[in-house]
């Protein structure tokens, strides 16, 4: 019941949104719909893990053995919550952004929300694939229609990259489906396969899936679409992309790759981890060189996602718990960062770090809120990301499946230092120092922006101080995944 509502509300709301040909009503309507989705998501949290309301299953394609099976487990709960929080926050924060034909913009945003929620809820591989694409198409139109100057090339690159990935994944899904004894796409049948597929098949299947997910996360060297797309997209869409959509990749590995193909994951885990590490260091180094705020945050996002992927391959309880909580945290923090960038860009008309300075004198509230978000981004204690990254690092360090755990931990820790360098450097150049002609006229933030940023800061601090409820929520899923990932028990 609850999962169906979660998908149906933004889907129907989005489709209806196309027909509200009025800027103001479209904006209010989309906020209303996204708040309704948030309410349902909170309802899902409140009913308890065993509630029958959390699952739904209906006939869809009997001839193919695919069912409309959706369900909320711990991991689904936390990602759906993130998605449900992200959209109203985005709508409120970008309330004053102007779009031509804004009703189409908001409708497409809601459709992408439906796709995202569907990905996190699907318990059937074909359904998962459907939603995976459904989330992509609206974003393609959002970026190409309302983006920056080079939007068409950038988003096209993005589309082709992800489409190649998802087609490879489709081949993998079909192969697995053909080998299920009951010819079914259900998650259960896929999980049951892990002992019957031999090692050689698992290896190449691993790459079919991993490439798809690695493009989405993204991991070096498949990341090149990401900074361009983030830079060119309208900021509201960038928030969706970086806050929620990249989690599809991480989520995909945890639900559809590692437990289904444990031998393949184990065999190539070190190599994949190597790519993650390379991704973190490379992205951090590039981020240090950026003058454009959007590109800086885009690269920092690659670095953070790399760490999460690394922890998945470490196959430890702490690491996996870290991934769960960090997926949520990263989404919240990076949306906070984008909100600030959006505010600066709207007021100053530029995103160039070199053209800004001394904003803190003019906009003290903004500065305070940003500093907290940015500190969370570098994982300072008492912030949510500290909890996440601490778990991630201790997970990687204590990994039993790899011999290189110490190397991985040390090199990955370097990226934390680098992240502190570029984040603090950015704050210093943008907010402190002397004002120039441009920033002289800056004004402080308005109420709606204050509210969302304050809400984000509250979330950051609360999870930073008391992460237990979140960890409890995902405990069961983590244990289940790790049992399935144990290659020795096959």
């Amino acid at each position, binding site marked *: 019941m609850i999962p169906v509502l979660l998908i149906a509300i933004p889907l129907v709301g989005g489709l209806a949104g196309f027909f509200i040909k009025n800027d103001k009503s479209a904006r209010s309507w989309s906020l209303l719909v996204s708040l309704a989705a948030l309410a349902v998501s909170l309802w899902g949290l409140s009913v308890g893990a065993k509630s029958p309301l959390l699952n739904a299953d209906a006939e869809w394609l009997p001839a193919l053995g695919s069912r409309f099976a959706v369900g909320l487990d711990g991991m689904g709960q936390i990602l759906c919550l993130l998605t449900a929080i992200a959209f109203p926050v985005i709508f409120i924060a970008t309330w004053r952004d102007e779009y031509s034909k804004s009703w189409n913009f908001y409708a497409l945003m809601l459709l992408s929300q439906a796709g995202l929620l569907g990905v996190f809820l699907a318990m059937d591989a074909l359904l998962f694939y459907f939603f995976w694409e459904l989330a992509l198409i609206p974003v393609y139109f959002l970026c190409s229609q309302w983006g920056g100057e080079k939007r068409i090339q950038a988003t096209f690159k993005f589309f082709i990259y992800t489409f*190649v990935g998802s087609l490879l994944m*489709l081949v993998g899904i079909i192969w697995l489906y053909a080998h299920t004894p009951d010819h079914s796409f259900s998650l259960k049948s896929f999980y049951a396969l892990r002992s019957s597929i031999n090692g050689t098949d698992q290896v190449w299947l691993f790459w079919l899936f991993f490439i798809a997910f690695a493009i989405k996360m993204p991991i070096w060297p498949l990341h090149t679409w990401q900074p361009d797309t983030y830079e060119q997209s309208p900021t509201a869409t960038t928030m969706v992309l970086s806050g929620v959509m990249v989690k599809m990749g991480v989520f995909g590995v945890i639900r559809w790759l590692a437990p289904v193909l444990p031998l393949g994951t184990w065999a190539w885990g070190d190599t994949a981890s190597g790519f993650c590490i390379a991704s973190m260091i490379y992205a951090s180094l590039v981020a240090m060189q950026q003058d454009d705020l959007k590109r800086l945050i885009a690269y920092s996002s690659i670095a953070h996602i790399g760490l999460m992927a690394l922890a998945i391959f470490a196959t430890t309880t702490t690491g996996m718990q870290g991934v769960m909580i960090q997926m949520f945290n990263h989404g919240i923090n990076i949306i906070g960062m984008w909100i600030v960038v959006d505010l600066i860009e709207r007021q100053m008309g530029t995103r160039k770090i070199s053209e800004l300075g001394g904003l803190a004198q003019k906009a003290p509230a903004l500065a305070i809120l940003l500093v907290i978000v940015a500190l969370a981004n570098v994982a300072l204690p008492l912030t949510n990301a500290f909890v996440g990254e601490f778990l991630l690092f201790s997970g990687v360090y204590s990994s039993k499946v790899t011999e290189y755990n110490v190397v991985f931990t040390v090199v990955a820790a370097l990226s934390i230092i680098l992240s502190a360098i570029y984040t603090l450097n950015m704050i210093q150049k943008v907010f402190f120092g002397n004002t120039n002609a441009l920033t002289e006229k800056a004004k402080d933030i308005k109420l709606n922006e204050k509210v969302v940023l304050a809400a984000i800061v509250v979330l950051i601090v609360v999870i930073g101080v008391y992460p237990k409820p979140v960890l409890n929520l995902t405990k069961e899923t983590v244990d289940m995944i790790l049992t399935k990932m144990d290659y020795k028990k096959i």
Partner: protein
Amino acid sequence: MNAIIISAVWGIIMMFSGVFTSKGSVVRNTAVLGLVLLLVGNYLDLIGYHFFPVDVHKMLFFDEFGLLANTVIFGSTLIFVLLSGRDIENIAPRMPVAECFALVFFVLCGVSLVTTFNTLLMLFLGIEIISIPLYILTGSDKRNLKSNEASLKYFLMGCFSTGLMLLGIALLYGASPTGSFSIDELGIGRVNLSALYMAGLLLLLVAMGFKVSAAPFHFWTPDVYDGAPTVFTSFMATIVKAGIFIGFIRLFNETFGDSQSKWQLFVAIITATTLFIGNITAVFQQSVKRMLAYSSIAQAGFMLLALLSINGLARDGILLYAAAYSLATIGVFAILIKMKDYTFEGFNGLAKHHPLLAATCTIFLLSLAGIPLTAGFFAKYYMLASVVETGHYLWLVIFAVLCAAVSVYYYFRVIQAMYFKDGDAQTMELRPAFKGLLVVVAALIILLGVFPQLLLDKLNTLIYTW
């Protein structure tokens, strides 16, 4: 049998309708009526009412697969005539409309032979009955040099491939133990795989490959599709191609299933070449019409996957593919005909002037690209799944999906032009009925994309009876 006779008779009726009336609308409505009759007649055949109990001496075999294929093909033709029938009148002032429609019905007669043949002779007859009217239709824009050139080219190349086909059939006749054209006699377990037999088989494969424009026998396709009047390009690229494909699958499934291991690699190479050439060349086209010609080659490559695997999924899939591909392509062509400029730039800014046209065109293109939620996705899915099911040729599956990714590039160029580029796309006058029908076709594509079992349930009962 119903379909063959009705289509042949209606072809003659259409021919004479031009004598009694010169009004285009009357002729068109007669054609629509004929197509509806065909659909009904064919459906009655499917559920067991045979109007014409002719003893065909096992030269034709009316199984469900063939009759369902007929349904798909007649349905597509009906949509084609409703959408673009009016444009036949605009091809050339002196070309009599009634005769064009008569030729369309003769083609349909040929198609219904090809979908239900049981001897190689009938296959040959069917293919010829399809081809000859097409040569005329290709050249129907009499005063246009390009159309003439296309017609001549098509005729010469078509004759050549027909010769090959006849030779192949003759060799197979020689190889069959009892001296027979029947595919029952040539079928599984009946013949030893002599050199004669294999040579005949390969010649037949080449000739059929030619007809469905599989690479490297595709060279006529872009020129003919480009030169022919756009209405008939639409007809040729969809209905005719789908019909011949059904015959192709039927031939290789029933006749040559036995020797599959011998020709499979050959088909795999043809498939890979077709996918590669079709997709890569389509990328470089400047005219949407020519791009669609190459895209039809690329789509044929996907359909060839069904020939490679020949199993239940493949037979299911080819029907779904035929339906999905025909619907979408007919839709795109119907919009293309209304455009004043056939280049990609000609589509610039279409979304601003005609949002409905752009939206439906986007759905058709998404379906051709195989994006989920459209019929094209399940069509491609079935093709891929059928090959995966055989357990071999996985490299070809991966190659095919990479080619599908390439195809996104050229289909999306049209979408980009319509939505994200500024321009002043010029169209002809659009009637509300035309727009309404486009919406219906688009809705049909989405419906099949979400619930393919609407078509497949019928098919599924079919697999088990096989």
